């Protein structure tokens, strides 16, 4: 528990550092006694999970922080055994059904139903419902999401679901309509800076405001990453200097280099090189959506204003195809090839205009 991210994580709604209005609303929600299903969404590193845990603590008290890992095994109708790890306290159960891959529907059906069917023992002193926390709901298959629909209604008396995901676009509409959607936006740069400074003060360190700002910007306002970066800076060089270089994740560097390679030359050979780099990224468990997003961000910075709209449109098109298909590499490469074609044509046209 000694990483700063873990050590200084707020545990109650009152201690949250930003989005305090939302925290107040959540507290009211808990106190009014009619707690709905929640769908918490927002970008990574915004503090969704922290907020959910705070809500749970508000609901049940400190008992939710006594966590244990349980290894559950569910038998699919095809007699296939599915092993899944859950994190549970006495009051809630956290499942990441995405871990079960294609059989997540069975996990949803069996696991959640058994939890939801059992009543709390002493409902007089506690809440009469348990909470099931599903993470990464956007990774759930459609089947699993449909399986969730009925469960959500049927066991409303004994069980509340808290769904946590990055984007609601992959959650089917019936589920969205059954939940209270709570968006947790990223903290602003100032908020990140204040958090960083606060943590450093607690550690007894002095963080120059310039460095804090740099870290906040470089982390993309992702608070988890900002804290990790800050700590890494601390490890590299303690008396902080304002212009010290902040460690980056390797895949970002690699992605940037790939984008540069695309821009510098457009040919089938280069496309072949790009393909190996894309494969490399994919094998390092970088999700293809993130790759395509990173590429577009880098490429847009490199191309002319006329092209930007077209490139963005193309990226959206191929990203959609990517979601429909299963072999990410085809779609990524198709996007790259398309960009190369457009870019090359644009450059040649420009050259022609220049010459004549």
């Amino acid at each position, binding site marked *: *528990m*000694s*990483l700063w991210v*873990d050590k200084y994580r707020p545990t109650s709604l009152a201690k949250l550092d930003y989005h305090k209005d939302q925290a107040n609303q959540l507290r009211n929600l808990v106190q009014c006694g009619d707690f709905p299903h929640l769908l918490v969404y927002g970008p*990574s*590193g915004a503090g969704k*999970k922290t907020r959910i*845990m705070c809500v749970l603590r508000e609901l049940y008290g400190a008992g939710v922080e006594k*966590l*244990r*890992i349980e290894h559950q095994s569910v038998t699919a109708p095809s007699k296939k055994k599915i092993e899944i*790890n859950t*994190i549970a306290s006495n009051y809630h159960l*956290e499942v990441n059904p995405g*871990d079960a891959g294609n059989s997540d529907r069975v996990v949803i059906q069996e696991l959640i139903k058994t939890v939801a069917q059992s009543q709390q023992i002493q409902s007089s002193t506690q809440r009469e419902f348990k909470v099931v926390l599903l*993470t*990464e709901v956007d990774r759930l298959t459609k089947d699993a999401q449909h399986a969730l629909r009925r469960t959500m209604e049927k066991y409303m008396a004994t069980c509340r679901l808290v769904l946590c995901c990055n984007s609601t676009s992959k959650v089917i509409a019936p589920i969205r309509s059954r939940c209270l959607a709570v968006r947790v936006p990223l903290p602003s740069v100032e908020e990140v800076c204040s958090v960083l400074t606060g943590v450093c003060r607690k550690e007894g360190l002095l963080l120059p405001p310039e460095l804090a700002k740099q870290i906040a910007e470089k982390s993309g306002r*992702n608070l*988890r*990453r900002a804290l*990790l970066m800050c*700590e*890494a800076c601390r*490890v*590299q060089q303690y008396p902080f200097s304002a212009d010290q270089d902040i*460690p*980056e*994740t*390797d*895949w970002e560097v*690699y992605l940037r*280099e790939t984008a540069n390679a695309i821009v510098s030359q*457009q040919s*089938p*050979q280069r*496309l*072949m090189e790009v*393909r*190996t780099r894309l*494969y*490399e990224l*994919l*094998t*390092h*468990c*970088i*999700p293809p959506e993130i790759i395509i997003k990173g590429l577009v961000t880098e490429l847009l910075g490199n191309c002319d204003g006329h092209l930007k709209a077209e490139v963005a449109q193309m990226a959206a098109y191929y990203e959609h195809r990517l979601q*429909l*298909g*299963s*072999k990410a*590499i*085809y*779609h990524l*490469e*198709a996007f790259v*090839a398309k960009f190369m*074609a457009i870019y*090359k*044509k644009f450059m040649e046209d420009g050259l022609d205009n220049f010459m004549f």
Partner: protein
Amino acid sequence: MDEYDEMYGIEDDFEQQFADELEVMAEMELEPPHPARVSGFRSKMPAPQTFEDAITSGDLASKTAGAAALSKTLGPSCDEEESLTPKAKKRKHDVAKKLHFDALQDDITPPSSPEVYGNSEGTRPGFTLSLSPDGPPVAMTASVLDISGLATLQESPKRVPTAVCRARKRPPATGDYITVTDSMGNRVYLSKKEDDDNKAPDPRFFRNSQNALGLLAVPIEVLKEQVADRRHRQLVEDSQRLTELLNRGVDPELLLDEVTEEEDGETADEGVCSRLWVDRFAPQHYIELLSDDFTNRCLLKWLKLWDMVVFGRERKPRPPAPEARPTAANAQNQNQAQRFKTKSQITEEILEAELDQYKRPKFKVALLSGPPGLGKTTLAHIIARHAGYNVVEINASDDRSAELFQKRIDTATQMQSVLGANEKPNCLVIDEIDGAPSAAIGVLLATLSRKDSREGEESAALLPICIFDRLPLLLVMPQRQGMKTDTGSLVALCEKTDNDIRACINTLQFLHGRGQKQLDQRVVSSVCVGLKDQNKGLFSLWQEIFQLPRLKRKRIGGDVFGALEEAGLKDGAQRLQHILHLASSNGEHEKLIQGLFDNFLAMKLKDPGLAGVCAGLDWLCFSDHVNECVLHGQNYSLMRYLPFLPAAFHFLFAANSVPRISYPNSHYEALTKTQHTKNAVVAMLAEIPPTIRSRVCQNNLCLEVLSLLLELICPKLRPVNPQLYSTREKQQLCELIDNMISYNLTYRQDRTPEGQYTYVLEPNVEDVVRFPGLPPRRQLTYQVKQLIARETELERMRRVERAQQNRNQRVETHSTGHSEVKRPEVKKPPARNHHHRLENIVKQAVVENKPELDFFGRAVIPKEKPAVNSATGEDAKLSGTLQIGKAVGKSDVWFRFNEGVSNAVRRSVYIRELL
């Protein structure tokens, strides 16, 4: 039944009695015996008549029998069926029989009954000669009637009928006869009669003649069986005649050809329809082989090289025999070879030159390979037989596990010594070896390396056969079977079947079987059977896709159709169809597409705008989407669109040059790597404590946490002994170890292939976050890593211990409820060495008086004594000394029993005692 049986034997004077009946009977040898049924009993006996007529005429409708009972009309219908299908309904048959018998018993008049016969026999001596089919027991006695033959006949009428000769008093008017005189001087004349198969079932005539008055004399079932029998026999005869006729028609033509005698006989024996043309016209001799002469010669030569070892050793007395045959057979070839130094000649010389010390050829096994249907198996068999070997074949139809394989090989190679001297040596032909399990191949190799056996191994043969090689045969064959054809259509057929002679012949037979007498171009192109399932290899498929079809050289035949076809292959529609066909006949669609994806960028493209590449990739995206729909929604009708991708690639990327194609393994490699990465992450996640575990999932671990975490665990540490660290450094180390433990990381010593020792992270998440080609991150030195590894290990142990202690303590706390008393004792350090005096030990050994507890864990307060549980150390010491006694405690020598430890006796020795 017996009564009827007896009647058969009696043939004395009823010729005179029933002369007219006999006449009729003579007629009936040719036709069914219904005229015999005319009698006066008809009016009285409608039922038997109905039966009889139904049987004889085989026509139920013609029978009026209106007055007959229902059961009786039912009978005939059964009987009729019976006669058509003889084995059908036995029970109904019995019913009919019974009916018939009743009628007989009731109404038959004495003359026809057997008793009457018995009487008449006594007065008139008669002679019966009955010949049973196997041996002719001729009954010459007048008084005893031998009916054995007849009985047999009745019970099993299907047997070859017995010849029955009738004895006459006078010499017969027509035909030969034999005069027989018995012991009593009576002379009878036995008429000689041609007892043909057809005429065999005489008995029923006797019956009829006996029942001249109109009753049915022969049991109905006998009649029916006879009818059925006759029909059957006629059928068989007809078919035989037909077969003979056919064979006779074929034979001359076969004899014209080079087919050998035994082959001919075989063909004559079996029906035409039963054999495939492929088998019928398979070559029987070396000279009939169609395959490339060079290959044949090489193989034969190689096999001949063994002669010296095989036959030279075993058949010492006749060494020239095996030598003579090949020379005779190959005389022509030899001459040719001498005149022209051909390639085969050279090869033969090479083969001959390379003999090992036992005069065996250097190569112990021959491997024939090639596409199916070129005659590899035939070649191997014929050559082995030609060289005087006994062919032992193992093919895919046999089970080819390693043990069985071994057994077969051993049998083949060792049986020879057991067999007699005349036996041919074995030549092992292992057919279809490409399907054999690798273990079996291993066995074969092992056998080869230690055995001096002779084995011809055959798998498949590379036979570049020219198309005209087999035209003569193809031309000959249809003519033999009465088909008209021309060269052009045969060439087309060959082309269609991809020069596969087996498929050619099968197609021809098929066409012939369908009644096609004329084979021309149109038939060949329209029929789709000749087209075998062209399962081309992936590589050739990729090649076809990436290569434009080359203009074929003009054929010698110069037929119009071939030219048309060439032109057709050039135009787009034809190419599209071709590729579509190839792609859809290939089963491994996934791999096919993968190969296209991996190779298309390496093609020589004239594509400056990258438009083609974009289109190709769009096709790939589309096919991926379709595939996903198929797999996810089980919408298999979409699968028909998948083969269009290769066709599109063909039009986009095909070039004239020969493409260099590599096997697609990028996808598989990526898959394994991803799996490796995932495994590392999962292994790391498995042991992370739940509070942290709930905050990190795989995704953000890979994206954000891990990379920075690896930075975090590489602090700048001075490479000195940790004891020399400053407080701050110590704290840093402490934090580092804490982090490593909470994220389930440690360093593990590993040895590089160069023999150096390194410490690597365990689980190795470094692979997860590091990318090739980026500047390497700062690494800790070996010493620091070692230090960290040790400290981590220690800290882990400490934590485990602490956790255990905590648990124990909690248990005790719960049980006693006196935690404040216990805690200092737990923390008390073990006694120093100089405290090992008995006094102290005695002090320590004092049993602490635990407070008595009741069932619920509450302290029970003793009533008479004050509570002992407040006893301090001083009290304990006092009580201990009291209990043990002062003398013991003050003694110099003492011992303490320590179970399992041998140095139980201690003595304090002072320095001054040693001085």
